[in-house]
């Protein structure tokens, strides 16, 4: 069977290569690593936790304005990994979709429906020639009224899935294997355990002894008041507890 020859554009726009690959989508995945950060998210029994690095490279930067954790609705938050500009655009779109759902249907959008919507939008970019896929990975953490704590991830290919624990970014593979070992042992984490496992996963995989200012933690619990981003003092409490455990 003779292999068809491409006109050479399959690397430049999202059309199929002769092997059936979409090079632009694969390059988009590589672009996620350009940010140089790794994020981890774990779903516990009654909570979901998302942890990401906070790197402020320039002394002149205002650290308060640097963040990768975003609130989408009262009960849904997300952690973005990858190119910052693309991330902000996707967050804006996710906020619009969630608000539009509330206006059209009168109740808060469930996490899986929002993730599905963002994944469908990302999929369109893999078919349209005039738009490139976005180089960022969205991890949604949220509380569903019927199903409880939910953790969803959607990527530039337009694929989305629910997870018990997941990671994204530069050290994604190492973090995922670390999480696999932990999840095998125990599935119903308490709030404390979930946060500590997430932080220790990042610390182990990146070999960094974290200070509170180098981490961002976002949580949502069944008890609490929606998606919350922890302050540095709160993060410090967990870091201290973690170091005492070790």
């Amino acid at each position, binding site marked *: 069977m003779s292999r068809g020859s491409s006109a050479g554009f399959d690397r430049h726009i999202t059309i199929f290569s002769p092997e059936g690959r979409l090079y632009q989508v694969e390059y988009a995945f590589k672009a996620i690593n350009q940010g140089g950060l790794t994020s981890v998210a774990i779903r516990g029994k009654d909570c979901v936790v998302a942890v990401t690095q906070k790197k402020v490279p320039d002394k002149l930067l205002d650290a308060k304005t640097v963040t990768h954790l975003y609130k989408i609705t009262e009960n849904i938050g997300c952690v973005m990994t990858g190119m910052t500009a693309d991330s902000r655009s996707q967050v804006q779109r996710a906020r619009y979709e969630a608000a539009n759902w509330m206006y059209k249907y*009168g*109740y808060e959008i469930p996490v899986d429906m929002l993730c599905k919507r963002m994944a469908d939008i990302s999929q369109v970019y893999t078919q349209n020639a005039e738009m490139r896929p976005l180089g960022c990975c969205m991890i949604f953490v949220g509380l569903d009224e019927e199903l409880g704590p939910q953790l969803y991830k959607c990527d530039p290919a337009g694929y989305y899935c629910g997870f018990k624990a997941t990671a994204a970014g530069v050290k994604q593979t190492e973090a995922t294997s670390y999480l696999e070992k932990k999840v095998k042992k125990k599935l119903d984490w308490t709030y404390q355990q979930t946060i500590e496992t997430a932080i220790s996963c990042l610390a182990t995989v990146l070999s960094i002894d974290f200070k509170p200012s180098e981490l961002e933690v976002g949580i949502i619990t069944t008890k609490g008041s929606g998606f919350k981003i922890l302050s540095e003092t709160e993060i410090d409490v967990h870091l201290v507890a973690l170091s005492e455990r070790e």
Partner: protein
Amino acid sequence: MALSNVLETPLPGFNFDNAARNAALEGLYDGGQTPKPMKTGTTIAGVVFKDGVVLGADTRATSGEVVADKMCSKIHYIAPNIYCCGAGTAADTEKTTELLSSNLTIFSQTSGRNPRLVMAVNILQDMLYRYHGQIGASLILGGVDCTGNHLYTVGPYGSVNKMPYLAMGSGDLAALGILEDRYQQDMELDTAKELVRVAIHAGIMNDLASGNNIDICVITREGVDYIRPYQESEYKDRNMKYRYRPGTTPVLTKKVVPLKLEVVQESVQQMETI
């Protein structure tokens, strides 16, 4: 969410496509008043009880002064957990509820969940408001979803009311009188069914445009009980048989004329017998 009914997404804002036509029509009538859409006459009611919702409706559809349908179904299926009574222009209620049901089926399949009442109400309200009352549908939606038992009404202009008991249609005042007097919170199933029956009955008795039988639909967490008819009217339709007893018409004379037949040809064909 993909809507099955539209090939292109509706434009945002108001749609004034018919403004020119309406202006031309007004010019044709003396006094500048366009004819009002005809109310086909109905009594529909709904009540929230302890375990769910009971919806009731009469079965008469009128076209002016003539009863067009004596056994029409006014309680429409929206979703396995949501039913809708429709009053107003029959075609409008029928098509609007079918459209809503179709869209919610698509939604159920994509999300894997039963739709919520608020979602159905919001979609209806959005559509009816967009048409500014040109779609003459007054609907009572009732159902049970993950947040509880709910009863809503949506008016033709897009107004929404959430109440534990509701009545709409030309017989609504008669039915509402009964409901206002006898409604209680957390009723049992039989009390609720009887209350709705009496309310619809009041509408049938006091409103010319409502009549014939009463349909009841009970929606609970376990399922739906659609009782059609719940109560038949005592004025039954004629039997549709046109046989008359011999002797109904008196016989005056009788004349018998035998027909003489001549045998022209005779042929015998043997049949094969086993």
